[in-house]
Each structure stands twice: as C-alpha cells, then as structure tokens.
C-alpha cells in the first residue's frame, strides 16, 4: 500500500483501502444479522400469559375483599350438583391495586361492596388456569352494585375455607398483574423493579412456587393478621425465598398468611 492515503473529504477511496472497506462492510452486515439471530435465540423465558389489551369485557359476580379484592363468578355446577365458582382478583389500571378505588367508591356511594352482586367492565388477564381482571376504566369500571336479598344465594356464595396448617413454601414473589399477563415475561431479575413498583402500588403479591414435576402453584400472600403486607415483601420480590405461614384454601385460591417479620427468608436457588 505504498503511498495509498485516504482523506475523508476527497471522495475516492484508494484501491487497497476500497478493497478492505468493501470486505469490512460485508463482514459487518453478516455480524449484525448473525448477532440479531443469536441474541434473539438467547431469550428463552417468556411466559404464555395473556392480557386482552384493548378488548373490554363486562362481567357480573359477587365481590369479596378477602383475601384480596376479588370477584367471584359462577361457572356452573359439577357432577354432584355443587356450584363451581371462579375467583378473580381485581387490579387497577397501570401499576395500582383496587383497594383505594373501592374505598373511594364505597364512600361516595355510601355502600359496601362486600358480598354484593357487581357488574364491572374491564380487561382479562390470565395464565395457567388463573385469571385476573383489570378495572381499566378505574372507578367508572364499576357499572352496577346490587344487594342480595335471597338468603339461599347468600349462603351459596359463602367462601369455602379449608385450613391446611402451617407450611413452608419455596418460590418467587411476583406481582400478580404482570405475572398473569400484563408483561411477558413478568417475573425474574429483569422484572424485579417493575414488580416492586406494582406491589408497592397495591397489586396483590403472589408466591409462584414450582414443584418437582415443574408445575407452578400460586399462593396469595397476606400478613398473619390477614392484613396486606405489600410494603413488607418489597425487599424480597423476584428472588428465591421461603415463606412460612398458615396455609388456607379459599375457594379456588391458596392463601399463605405470613408474619412479615419472621415468615420470609431468602434462600439459595
């Protein structure tokens, strides 16, 4: 390359330089495409959860604020003629829970929603047989509230409670909204900060525990006095933990009542 010299503002590339640059351009394009493919292949952990974004549904069911604000839908009867209910925890738009919204609604309308029949409009989130419902239009999502007069119906909708004793369960604390569909993936290290934001905003925390056969079980997390312990679980979100507390099955959800001071410990993966 004797005396070959490139000057940017003179517009012709010297011969050897042009050759090298041409080769480099091909190499670069190859490297960029190949890296795109390889890095895309690297991502494996994407969940199958769904968020019916933009698709509003109107549902009618019975409102309960324990263990978390949820609506109980009548799904039909089993072969023994027993009613089957599906309990659907409610979440607010964005990174907020519904407790505050329900409180304001109750105050403004001088009514308690507990045990009432409610009609709401919003968006479904679901995964793994569990569903959640987002009050997409916030307070305006609550369309109708009616009291139950028939004692038979009152009786029918009473939660079925099964106490399972004290248990220790290993898993990961996730924010239920993102995990069950608002974000995919909505768990693990990269989602930690977002999960903290959501749980801090009142979204119910859930322990997702994978058992030996790879099946995931879900436990709503409440304090040992049945209180919300969202703030207390924040430091433990999205990492391997063991929760110890009273295990109770309420209808189709498991709930673990944990003393936030003594019932949460970090564990190795």
């Amino acid at each position, binding site marked *: 390359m004797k005396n070959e010299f490139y000057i940017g503002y003179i*517009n012709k590339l010297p011969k050897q330089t042009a050759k090298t640059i041409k080769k480099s351009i091909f190499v670069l394009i190859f490297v960029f495409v190949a890296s795109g493919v390889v890095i895309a292949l690297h*991502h494996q*952990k994407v969940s199958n959860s769904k968020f019916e974004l933009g698709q509003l549904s109107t549902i009618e069911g019975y409102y309960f604020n324990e263990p978390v604000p949820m609506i109980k839908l009548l799904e039909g009867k089993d072969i023994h003629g027993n009613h089957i209910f599906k309990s659907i925890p409610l979440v607010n738009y964005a990174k907020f829970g519904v407790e505050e919204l329900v409180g304001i609604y109750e105050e403004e309308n001088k009514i308690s929603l507990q045990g009432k029949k409610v009609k709401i409009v919003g968006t479904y989130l679901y995964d793994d047989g569990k569903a959640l419902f987002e009050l997409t239009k916030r307070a305006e999502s609550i369309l109708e509230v009616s009291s139950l007069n028939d004692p038979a119906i009152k009786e029918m909708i009473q939660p079925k409670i099964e106490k399972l004793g004290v248990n220790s369960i290993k898993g990961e604390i996730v924010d239920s909204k993102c995990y069950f569909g608002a974000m995919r993936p909505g768990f693990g290290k990269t989602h930690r900060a*977002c999960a903290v934001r959501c749980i*801090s905003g009142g979204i119910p925390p859930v322990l997702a525990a994978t058992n030996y056969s790879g099946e995931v079980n879900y436990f709503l997390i409440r304090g040992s006095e049945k209180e919300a312990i969202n703030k207390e679980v924040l430091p433990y979100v999205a990492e391997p933990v063991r929760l110890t507390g009273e295990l109770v099955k309420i209808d189709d959800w498991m709930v673990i009542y944990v003393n936030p001071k003594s019932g949460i410990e970090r564990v190795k993966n």
Partner: protein
Amino acid sequence: MSHQYKAIHWNPQKKAYDLLIVLLIISYLLAFVGVSAIIHPNLDPVNLLIRAFGSLSLLLLHLVLIIGPLCRLSARFLPMLYNRRHLGVSTFLIAAFHGILSLIQFHAYGDSNMLISLFTANTQYTSLAQFPFQVLGFFALIILFFMAATSHDFWLKNLGQNFWKRLHMLIYLVYILVIMHVMLGVIQLESSPLLVIFLCIGFSLVIGLHLLAGWKEVKLDRQLQELKDDGYLLVGSINSWEEGKARIVNNGKQRIAIFKNGNEFSAISNRCAHQGGPLGEGQVIDGLITCPWHGYQYRTDDGCSPPPFTEKVSTFNLQLLGDKILVDPIPNQPGTKGEQVKL
C-alpha cells in the same frame, strides 16, 4: 476544518458512512425482531423493543471501540474512523430509546416518580445477583449523552482538546458499565449461555485489538529511544524515508513526526490539533502535512494550518550530520518556524 461551524459539513463520504450505519441498524433489528416474533410470539412487544434496542446499542458500542485500534494496526481501516462520531451519536440514540422505553415500561404509571423508582425500586445494592442493574445502564447512558452532545468540533474547540479527549475516553467506562448492566441483568434471568459467549467474544476482540495496537506503538517507542545522540535525537539516514511520509521518534514526553517532502525535511509534533490524531501516519499532500484521521493540514515549516484555518502544532529543529537526520527534542512554540534540513 474550524473556520466556521455548521451542524454537519456533509460530503459524499459522510453520506455513504451514514447509509451504512442505517443499513446495519436495520439489518440487526429485522433479524432480531423476526427471530423473536417467530420463536416467542407471546413476548411483550415493548419488552421486545427494549431488548432489540439494548442489544443493538451494545453491538454498536463494540464497533465504536474497535475502530481506533484497527486503524492503528492498518491504515486501510481509516475510512471507518473518518465519521466515527456519527456512529457514536447513533449508539447514543439507540441506547437512549432503550433506556427511556425501559424507564416507562418498568417505572412509570406507578406510585413513585420514575427516576426515583429507578434508584429505589430494587435496593439490593449489596447483593451481586440481585444488584439493581438498571442503574448501571442509566449512568452509561448519561455519559453517552455528554459524549454525543459534545461530539461536534465546536465543543472540541471550546472545551480544549485535553478535556475533550478525557471526556471521550469515558467510552471505556461506558463499556464496563454496560457489560455489568447485562451480566447482572438479563444474564441472571436466562439460562442460555449464548449471550455470555457473545459478550466474551466481543470483550476478547476489544481487549485483543487494543493490546495489539498498544504493543505495536510501545515497540516503536522503545526502538526509537535507543537512538539518542548528545542532546539531539538520531532519527535515521536520509535514505530511510519514503517520499511524503514521516518517521516518528519519541523524546520521552511526546512523539515527533519528521517528514520528507522532496529534498526537504521538517519536524512537527505527532499530535494533531484536532482530536490528537497521529500526524506521523499521515502524508504530505500538496506540500501540506495531512492528518490521517480527518484530513486537517499543516504547513511543513511552521506547523500552521493554511488560512482560513487557525490550527497550530509545535515544530522541532532538525540538523544534518553526514547523511543522518537529528532532531532537537525540545519543541518550538506551536506555529513558529523550525529549522528544516534542505538537501
């Protein structure tokens, strides 16, 4: 050069360069988004964009980092250096899109200001595995912002070459921050080793090329320092020059480029007044010493850029002893005439 500042002095080389940048960006995004859409149709589209732009900015950062040493190793890569600042600014813009999208997706619409949330949502600052990796990305982005914002020659001039150069050396800090951002972030989530392998190859390439280029220069400096001769440094026999080119000696503090132009020898500082490019790797074009990096030019006798330009570099005095050229290691004031050797 510096007589007036336009936003960008366009020329066909710069246009071709920018076209290539756009082409690379598009080919990466198409490959990444295409493959992701096929294998993970359920991936959140915002997360998909976050990942696509994050990983793309890291790839571009590698390119920014290897161009310097590649040019040191072979002048044939110099066209890649000519408009490197546009590559740097593109890297910043892509990274900014990634960072801002992440801030909105993971921190906005909650019970806290999103910038406060960035620092306080994850507080495991003492844990390695749980470390708030997003904060590392944030600092990298801030540094990239300052580099991109000062990339124009206007700032180079106003901040002074030394400060500007030091600021732009922070690119290595950015690289380390981003590697940690990825190692403590997405690599903690995924179990596939592909990204780790990718980072290792990238890291080896960056470090390897820098070592190779550094070693070449150290070797040169060592060899040349042995040529000392009472005060003046011995450069070499008048027959050892290629026409229009320089030989370089190191006076212990800086490198000196001694050019042969016809039967005239002249010495100037090896450091270009623009971004410190190696003048001794340049050539004499139309009687002017021309920097290999962006083509700034200096007169052989006094080290001044020809009017209307105002750059100046130091000159050095030369002597002829037999057929040997000797150089005074003490520089003259930048822009003043040095003693040349005329055969």
